[in-house]
């Protein structure tokens, strides 16, 4: 990727990572079609944060926009990673669930509505505890209800990444789009180190973290469907392409046998490195339709 990259185009690109949630969501729609639902001036904010002395945000860190992408109805939900780590609480969770439910209701009536989730999140908002957990269960149920009708596309651009319960939500989506700056995983590096010790996972070793959780690795092992540069045009093009592709015949999360076989083939008695995983899980496996065993392009540096 780096070798083939057009440097001038790369310098002149509009970074997607640097955009805030609202700008990210808006950038994905056809011009002049986006409108925000339950925006900041509706003041639907978390009732729980002020009680704990935490400043709330007027949109609870969750931006919902409805509009058209490639002329087709779509809803985009963007989590603001800068606010409380993009965490899901009662309000932000309800907004995300309601957006997916409405897309499903429209789809059932024949107005197929794709959903794009821009996930910069650590998962459940700890200050809202069980309400956050319940929200994530509802989000997962809503994704499962929508995805037979229209694609649900999760985008992890960075730099927060997507962890905790929301990584499960990403796993249930029809497609996952990542940048090489992004990370996707159930437990974050610091959580793993804290629970299992520094010998298990050194959370200060950035090369190690990205070699395991990073977008490049996730794509190369077939766990993400598109790897794009940090470029708003490229992110938009990838999403339009996946919406055009439609609902996959078999979703990744339905491939229980495939993934069970892959896990059984691993030898947990020794440490295997990310490169081995690419070799075993990447190209060559009989990837079902809709699951790209992402090819690693020339000039790509290994980070393990």
């Amino acid at each position, binding site marked *: 990727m780096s070798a083939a990259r057009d440097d001038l185009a790369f310098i002149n690109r509009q970074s997607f990572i640097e955009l*805030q*949630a609202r700008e990210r969501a808006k950038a994905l729609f056809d011009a002049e079609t986006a409108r925000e639902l339950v*925006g*900041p*001036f509706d003041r639907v904010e978390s009732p729980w944060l*002020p009680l704990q*002395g*935490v*400043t*709330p*945000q*007027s949109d609870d*860190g969750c931006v919902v926009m409805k509009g058209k992408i490639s002329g087709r109805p779509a809803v985009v939900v963007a989590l*603001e990673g*800068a*606010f*409380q780590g993009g965490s899901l609480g009662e309000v932000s969770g309800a907004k995300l669930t309601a957006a997916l439910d409405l897309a499903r209701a429209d789809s059932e009536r024949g107005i197929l509505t794709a959903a794009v989730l821009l996930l910069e999140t650590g998962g459940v908002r700890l200050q809202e505890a069980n309400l956050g957990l319940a929200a994530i269960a509802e989000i997962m149920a809503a994704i499962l209800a929508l995805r037979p009708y229209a694609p649900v596309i999760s985008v992890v651009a960075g730099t927060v990444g997507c962890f905790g319960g929301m990584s499960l939500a990403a796993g249930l989506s029809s497609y996952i789009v990542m940048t090489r700056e992004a990370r996707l995983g159930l437990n974050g590096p610091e959580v793993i180190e804290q629970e299992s010790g520094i010998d298990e996972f050194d959370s200060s070793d950035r090369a190690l973290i990205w070699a395991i959780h990073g977008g490049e690795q996730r794509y190369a092992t077939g766990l993400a469907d598109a790897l794009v540069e940090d470029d708003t045009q490229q992110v938009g093009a990838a999403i339009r392409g996946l919406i055009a592709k439609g609902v996959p015949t078999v979703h990744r999360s339905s491939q229980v046998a495939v993934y069970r076989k892959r896990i059984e083939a691993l030898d947990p008695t020794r440490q295997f490195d990310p490169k081995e995983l690419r070799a075993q899980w990447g190209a060559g496996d009989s990837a079902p339709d809709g699951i790209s065993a992402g090819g690693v392009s020339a000039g790509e540096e290994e980070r393990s």
Partner: protein
Amino acid sequence: MERIEFDYPAKRQVSGRAHVGVVGSGDLEVLLEPTEGNSSHVLIRTSVDGFRETWQAVLDRFFSKYDGAVRIEINDAGATPGSVQLRLQQAVEVSEL
């Protein structure tokens, strides 16, 4: 979290509203909306307690130049006075687009 409120006299009605910023570390969110009457109201919720006088100084300066009748809500996550001033100016700019 501390809650601080101020009132300032206003001379003219405005029509636009604006939302800028994010409640992220060292930053803040400003909601600016037109209001009836001849005064402006500011409500601040800040994660850093004990800076009422600093807020007053920043807002005194802002309202020495701005005379629209507005309701301003600030959700702050420890922004510096300079950042606050810039966000306020940005909110005015966006509201006048």
